[in-house]
């Protein structure tokens, strides 16, 4: 029987107006990726400045300039509904690539912040 697990990967945004790229490795026993959600230690900065491209198993799911705020959910969202539903995406080569871009915004002053990507995954029971 398959199990649902939540994987978290962090990306540190250390400079203003710059792109940050990172590839995350999923566990070998993860078979599908079902959802994605984003949080930060500075939600205000992420909401106003963040944009990213996400590809899973070399397939693009969110194109360049996809705003981070569209993948965020506040406390008014049901805790079971906070992930963005991806369906059942095969984990394939187990890699998730994120190209994050910090875009200056007059609303906010830049401070280094952390972006946390949460992936809702399904894994097989290892024998």
């Amino acid at each position, binding site marked *: 029987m398959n199990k649902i697990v939540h994987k978290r990967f962090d990306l540190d945004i250390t400079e203003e107006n710059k792109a940050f790229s990172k590839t995350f490795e999923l566990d070998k026993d993860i078979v599908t990726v079902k959802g994605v959600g984003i949080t930060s230690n500075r939600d205000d900065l992420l909401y106003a400045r963040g944009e990213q491209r996400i590809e899973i198993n070399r397939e693009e799911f969110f*194109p*360049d300039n996809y705003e981070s705020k569209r993948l965020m959910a*506040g*406390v*008014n*969202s049901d805790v079971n509904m906070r992930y963005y539903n991806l369906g059942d995406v095969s984990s394939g080569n187990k890699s998730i690539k994120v190209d994050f871009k910090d875009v200056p915004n*007059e*609303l906010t002053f830049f401070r280094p912040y952390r972006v946390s990507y949460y992936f809702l995954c399904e894994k097989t029971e290892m024998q």
Partner: protein
Amino acid sequence: MKEKVIIHTVQVTKKGEINSFQIKLPMDAKKIIGIESTVKGIEGFVGAPAGRNMVMPGIILPGSAMGMAGMPFGKIDAPFAAAAPSGGLFFRQTPIAGELRLQSQGPSNIFYSTDVKLTDANVGFGDFSETPFWKPQVFTHGEKFMEDIVGVDDNSYVLSGTYRDRFGEERGHDFNYRVNVYVWYDIEK
């Protein structure tokens, strides 16, 4: 079927500007299933006065925590009511950035028309966690973003769109901002 999204960015620089654009869809797009739009660059103006009707008069509900000087608070306990000294029940008009219309080349013709909103100005409405130093924000209390559902299967691979600025027009000033239009579509797996 599988969902994909394409983003088109409209740059606005002049007040009242009417911007016409085209969005080219990939050839494997079978059906347009959803549209979203966001604004970047002027979100900070939320709540700022914009002419005559930016802030609506407060709605004082009988028996509400809003209360008035000398009036007893209603059914909500005083500690909660005290947390909203400036009145958690002021309803603010959500500012509009402009008007967006999309047109398919097929029989659906103009299939989408909306007011592009900056953000939800009433995200903290009725939330008594508000204090003079902090109030609920869209990034703390916002709901999950969802697209407006449409169903256009015209086999039209080019969408025509127009965006008209209302934000600068209402304020009589040129604002520089961009509007992102997200077009969700189905492809064959």
